[in-house]
């Protein structure tokens, strides 16, 4: 009886408060309408922070407002954040999906609400976006395969050996593309054995993967899908196994990784990492130029080569993919020869 009375008391109180708030709460933001873009980041490590900063800077130049959310690698949380951006009534959404397929229902909801969605760094699978701007991840994977193959040829005089591929999260489109680019090239050399280990972009799994495989069998080369997350644990694992040997010295295990992060570039400079395949993440803000063109000016984005003088990622290419327009920015091979190039994001 008491419980029921209390419940009624709170129910009445709650609805009275609601009515009061409905009456006096803010009705809209009131301020002058600024073009607002919501950005959904998967997490906030050095790489994604660089993308965020690039987008923030570009938006500031245009006088736009950016609302940034980070989902801490949870696909469910990213969907919730997508719904919140729709509720906030943003004019466009930028997304770097944690899961290329799971975000599909959120993208559909945004489009139902009339909000265009653009991919940055990663794209979707099965659900079209207005456009995606990302590094040519297949190219990065291929460049790594070429580097590893050249090392093995030099080491054995022929194309043979064992390569460990430490993958990212294979649910993400970029990991799939890096894997594809790498393995398609490797498939040309039947005597090179590729061992693949998934890591889900998890530092511990990079460490364990390197420790277990290199500790249990003879491995000649390691390709990591990321040097932001992978380089430190992989080099620690090699050190623990007594196999952390600089390039050019006897017993050195070739190591190449995608990203071109400050950590990766430092390892290249010091000789622990043979090559890094740098992504143009500090130029990802260019996506806002296409948002402006399409949403504000109502223009169509042309397909074909896209050239920007002096940019490391140029020439890029724009084409119609299964999931909308795709702009692929070239990745840059970074070795000891060009590791100090100021245009690399890892040096900025």
């Amino acid at each position, binding site marked *: 009886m*008491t419980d029921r009375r209390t419940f009624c008391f709170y129910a009445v109180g709650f609805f009275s408060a609601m009515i009061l*708030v409905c009456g006096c709460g803010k009705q809209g933001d009131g301020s002058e309408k600024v073009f607002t873009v919501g950005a959904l980041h998967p997490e906030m490590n050095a790489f994604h922070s660089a993308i965020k900063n690039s987008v923030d800077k570009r938006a500031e130049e245009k006088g736009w407002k950016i609302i940034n959310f980070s989902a801490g690698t949870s*696909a469910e949380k990213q969907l*919730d954040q997508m*719904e919140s951006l729709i*509720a906030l009534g943003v004019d466009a959404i930028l997304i770097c999906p944690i899961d290329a*397929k*799971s975000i599909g*229902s959120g993208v559909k909801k945004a489009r139902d609400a009339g909000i265009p969605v653009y991919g940055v760094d990663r794209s979707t699978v*099965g659900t079209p976006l207005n456009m995606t701007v990302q590094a040519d991840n297949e190219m990065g994977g291929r460049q790594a395969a070429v580097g590893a193959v050249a090392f093995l040829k030099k080491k054995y005089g022929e194309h043979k050996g064992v390569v460990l591929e430490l993958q990212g999260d294979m649910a993400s489109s970029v990991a799939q593309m890096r894997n594809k680019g790498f393995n398609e090239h490797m498939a040309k050399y039947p005597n090179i054995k590729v061992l693949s280990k998934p890591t889900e972009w998890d530092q511990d799994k990079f460490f364990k993967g390197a420790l277990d495989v290199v500790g249990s069998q003879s491995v000649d080369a390691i390709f990591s899908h990321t040097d932001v997350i992978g380089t430190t644990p992989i080099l620690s694992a090699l050190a623990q196994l007594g196999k952390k040997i600089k390039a050019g010295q006897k017993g050195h295990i070739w190591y190449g990784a995608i990203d071109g992060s400050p950590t990766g570039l430092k390892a290249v400079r010091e000789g622990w990492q043979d090559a890094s395949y740098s992504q143009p993440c500090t130029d990802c803000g260019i996506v806002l130029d296409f948002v402006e063109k399409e949403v504000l000016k109502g223009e169509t984005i042309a397909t074909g080569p896209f050239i920007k003088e002096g940019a490391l990622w140029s020439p890029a290419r724009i084409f119609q993919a299964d999931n909308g327009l795709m702009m692929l920015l070239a990745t840059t091979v970074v070795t000891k020869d060009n590791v100090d190039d100021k245009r690399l994001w890892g040096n900025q």
Partner: protein
Amino acid sequence: MNKRGDYLNRVLFLLLNNIAWLLVAVSVIVFSLLSGRFLRPYTLLGIIPRVAPIGILVIGQSFVMLTKHFDLSSESVLGLTAFSATLLIASPELGGWGTMLPGGMVIVLMLGAGVLIGMLNGLMITKLKLNNLVYTIAVLITLRGVSYLISPATSASGLGDGFGWLGGGSLFTVMVDGKPVRVSVSLLFFFLIFAAVHIITRYTRFGRNIYAVGANRAAAEAAGIRSERIIIAVYTISGFCAALAAWVLAGRMDSATMKTGYHWIFSIQAAAIIGGISLKGGRGNMIGAMGGVILWGVLDTGLLIVQASPWIIDAILGGLLLLAILLDALKNRYLARKTLKEQLSKSLVGLSDDYLNINRSLAQGAK
């Protein structure tokens, strides 16, 4: 003086018992004042569908907690059933195994799997006398491992409208400011299922037996209640709820991954405890638990709408859990003191002892 103190205690106890709903009201008011976007239909109608899967898991957890047990495995049961169901339905191009089973059959299979896992948990804990906390942690880790094992190293999607109706379907759509706002099926389902479990726990013998086992298992057994059966039943319900939540969640996302539901157990525990489900068992009710879930949803949505820093969001949600266990401890202390007072006053009728804070009227009331 004593009378007043007792009255204050009662008021305090009432507030503590309904803290979740009180905080819901406060949060709604605060968020509404902070952002004009919060009280809009799209936002408000989105809160419940967002927390519906967590709500269903909280129901399962509450059943178990009422018997003074825990089921920490529920997030992994949800993950495994959601992911395997998705793999069974999805086409190979969208990450499935290629079996492409019809949605109806998969729903029966996944709910059946949830029931079986839950029942097995209950049997292991009661028959083998395993520690429920450690055992369910072991199941949590094992089932997550199984999700990784069965995974073709990617996620799967494309579940079809039939399977996705409960989690992602709409009852109807209304136009607000020229934009469509969906009223989700899961919104209605959320309230229906909480109403159903409220009736079960409150008005059935089974429900009363759950409380009896949780409050004092030895006394319940002495009164003829077969406590082991009750415990197996609540774990079975928890397994069923996890699979049901998996259905809702996979439907909402139209996909699942091997990490689906990962780390949800903290939210589930927090929502249940803040909703008044006691860590000591035998106390709390489903309406309170629903308040806990809605509070979680309001905070999660509101903090995003007001664009709070992610660190503040984590701090607030973590602080909420801390507050919940503090309040639970306070309530337990109050109840223990109250019981002691009542017992003493029964045996000391006629005395008024300031030291024991007892007076005649309380003694009369206790009778």
